[in-house]
């Protein structure tokens, strides 16, 4: 009877009203060869306490941010999530609603989406943003596809220092499209931009800042060069870095995308998080995904609707700018709440992260763990070790987690504002002991 309300009497009355004798007749339109003539072999029918026991047992064996210390990076980070964020996104009027197709009873979602878009624009310096995509990697793929819609060119240049997941997702999306991907090599941990000087007919350049290794790229030069080559500049950025790092608008990015997890989202073993997508007003009609716009109602009151829907699949079908429908709105809402709470503090937060990561890197160098390359970084940096997996495992045994592993001799170390001096000193002590 779980979640199914009818009594036996009601079922009988309802079947009679339909003119059927039993529930089997409800499925008489399914050919007998296709009917399942048994129950599904699925264990269940558990009460809430059984469910709790089952899931608690699994959860209790895993090192989480609450019982271990994470210096893990690679695109997803253990940042501080204000308590109010979880409370807001757990309001049932938000999380049990569908896409705001009936605008008059969805003004909460729609105004929040308008505010989210505005906050993303404030943060990146861009002119317009959509209401979110699935994640940072698919947002890059969508940005590349948009660049090709904008300029019709078929040459995509991607830095080798972009997160490998991003490149891989882009290559998967490439299966459905006719374009080439050229790679700019990595040199000393950052992108070697020189091959770009000889390229023409470029649709776009994809760079990540900070890059996969945590290092800061020369985004100014990259921007100038790709524009000279006739292409758009797609910048994938870590939004939490933008309190201190140069904004994409300042170096002339045309499309700004990224993984939004750092803004108020939990780790979630990698998902759901969300991708943000911002660009210039000129390209708004080429954008993928839904967007909220401000308007008025028949009484002249300010209200919000989904706008420019003629770009989308439910209207344009095979001619839509993307197939995306469900996005990751609830995660984007978490980021809007986060930015409302913490946005004005991002310069201070950025400084705190930078200060901590610098402290840890300097100490690690001093105990014999040099940086893989000497470059500037923001919150994450690669160190050289004798055996990356062995170091990772030895630290894990002490409840300290670093990574991901880049190669046999290189480990990424990420430091968020949550890592205290005590955490870092302990990590240094542990690593010193491994020498």
């Amino acid at each position, binding site marked *: 009877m779980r*979640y*199914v309300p009818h009594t036996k009497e009601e079922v009988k009355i309802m079947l009679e009203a339909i003119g059927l004798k039993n*529930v089997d007749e409800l*499925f008489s339109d399914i*050919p007998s060869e296709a009917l399942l003539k048994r129950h*599904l072999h699925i264990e269940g029918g558990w009460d809430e306490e*059984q*469910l709790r026991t089952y899931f608690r*047992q*699994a959860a209790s*064996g895993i090192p989480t941010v609450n019982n271990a210390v*994470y210096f893990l*990076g690679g695109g*997803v980070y253990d940042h501080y999530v*204000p308590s109010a964020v979880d409370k807001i996104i757990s309001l049932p*009027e938000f999380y*049990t609603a569908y*896409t705001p197709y009936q*605008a*008059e009873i*969805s003004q909460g*979602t729609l105004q929040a989406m*308008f505010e989210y878009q505005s*906050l993303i624009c404030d943060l990146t310096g861009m002119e317009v943003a959509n209401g979110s995509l699935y994640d940072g990697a698919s947002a890059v793929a969508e940005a590349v596809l948009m660049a090709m819609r904008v300029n019709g060119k078929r040459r995509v240049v991607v830095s080798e220092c972009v*997160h490998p997941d991003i490149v*891989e997702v882009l290559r*998967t*999306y490439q299966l459905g499209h*006719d374009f080439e991907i050229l790679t700019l090599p990595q040199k000393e941990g950052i992108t070697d931009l020189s091959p770009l000087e000889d390229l023409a007919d470029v649709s776009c350049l994809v760079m990540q800042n900070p890059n996969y290794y945590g290092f800061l790229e*020369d985004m100014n030069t990259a921007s100038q060069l790709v524009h000279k080559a006739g292409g758009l500049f797609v910048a994938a950025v870590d939004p939490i870095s933008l309190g*201190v*790092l140069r904004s994409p608008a*300042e170096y002339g990015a045309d499309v700004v995308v990224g993984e939004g997890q750092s803004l108020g989202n939990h*780790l979630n073993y990698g*998902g*759901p998080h969300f991708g943000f997508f911002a660009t210039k007003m000129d390209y708004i009609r080429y954008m993928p995904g839904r*967007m909220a716009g401000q*308007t*008025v*109602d028949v*009484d002249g*009151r300010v209200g*919000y*609707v989904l*706008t420019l829907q003629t770009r989308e*699949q439910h209207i*344009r079908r095979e001619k839509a700018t993307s197939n995306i429908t469900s*996005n990751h709105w609830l995660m984007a809402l978490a980021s809007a709440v986060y930015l*409302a*709470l913490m946005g*004005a*503090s991002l310069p201070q937060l950025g400084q*705190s992260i930078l*200060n901590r990561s610098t*402290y840890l890197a300097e100490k690690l160098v001093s105990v014999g763990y040099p940086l893989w390359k000497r470059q*500037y970084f923001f919150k994450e940096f690669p160190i050289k070790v004798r055996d990356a997996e062995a170091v990772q*495992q030895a630290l894990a045994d002490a409840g300290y987690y670093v*990574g*991901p592993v880049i190669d046999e001799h290189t480990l990424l170390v990420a430091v968020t504002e949550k890592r205290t*001096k005590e955490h870092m000193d302990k990590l240094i002590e542990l690593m010193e002991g491994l020498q």
Partner: protein
Amino acid sequence: MMNSRKGTLPLLKELHKPGRRGPQVPMGGLEDRPVSELLPKEFLREKPLSMPELTEVEVVRHFVNLSNLNYGVDNGFYPLGSCTMKYNPKINEEVAAWFQDIHPALPENSVQPLLELLYTLQEDLLEITGMDAITLQPAAGAHGELTSLLMAKAYFKDHGLLEKDTVIIPDSAHGTNPASATMAGFKVVTVKSDEEGLVDLEQLRTLVNEHTAVFMLTNPNTLGKFERNILDIAQLIHDVGGFMYCDGANLNGMLGWARPGDMGFDFVHLNLHKTFSTPHGGGGPGSGPVAVKKALEPYLPKPVLVKAEDGTYHWDFDRPRSIGKVRSYFGNILVALKALAYIKSLGGAGLREVGTMAVLNANYMRVAMEGTLPTAYPGLCKHEYVATAEEVKKRYGVKAQDIAKRLLDKGFHAPTMYFPLIVKEALMIEPTETETKENLDAFVEAIKEIVQEAETNPDLVLSAPHDTPVRRLDEVKANKELKVRW
């Protein structure tokens, strides 16, 4: 609960007052060093960041008051066709949250119990769909469609079948189907529906040829009809070496009664946020696992979750024929765990009962509404049906949209409007299994009242809604004047 507040709220930007701040930034005991000592100027912002400056209490009130302008399943009946807006059990939220603080780069040996849960979900979904292999990676239904079509593309390329360039899609299909086909680089050909609302078999025969790569079919279809010629259709497609794709958005209409894998489908995507009760979050996150037959297994996105002989679980990245990743890391894991909690709360028998009651509710409403708003394609339906307001429009000038808006005044969410495109003045109604008979009766009663109003006082309906936070909004102005940020 939705209140009678008139209008929306002042924007966060308007609440801004310089100097206000939210929660404190964790500082954790390091000596302070200014940014200018840590990084050269060329990496730093020139213009200081300008964001609204607010306190926590203002922010909380702002969003709580915004939530009051919304309507969710927890507020009331939400018969939005094709969206399966069933109740989202609270226990699922509770247990899934226990896994929110786990980093995806943890070594595999640290996360075995979580991988076991995900593997169990995979096994259960394979049993539910009758398929052989599965990926949890796609983020949503449309993402699952794209994933599947790219797999089909890779398969044909691998087998040297380059002529396979066309996807056939019924005219009643979700818009995502043709949009996904385009994104996967296929041509789209549309097949009509026949007078019963099913795929027009005769026309399909003329469209199928050596170019046919995939036939995408929603079953039960968007009219709520079970495609009873499914076995013939599958034969037709398989005879030319094409694949059968099941858009699983409507799985609720046959859950526990019939399985895509037993009726000739080679692919199916599932919407965990529909059939498996995970909340839709006002637009996402969803989750769109894809289950396939054996021949397609090598092409699944990597990594694939596998169980070794010693009983341990692994993410297998060594998949030479995989299409690659479709997103970062492993999938919408928290959504998957909620779906697992749902499946475990029900078990095999409970899942079948879900299918039974979803279909019972839809048919009960369909019959009850028949004299008021007739079903476009009469006869037995599965989880949903499509009513048409064409007669009401002809008689009283009241359209499907007007009826939908008037329903908002009466405390209901409206059905899906103007879809599928083949039905004039369409209202697509999906009650789901979690609604009581009283709710179904009240909705039917409301429809009757509205049609009555359309006759006696059409202006009341034409100018609806009246009792919502805002009334009808000017979409033309929104599109023309494009104000999409403050």
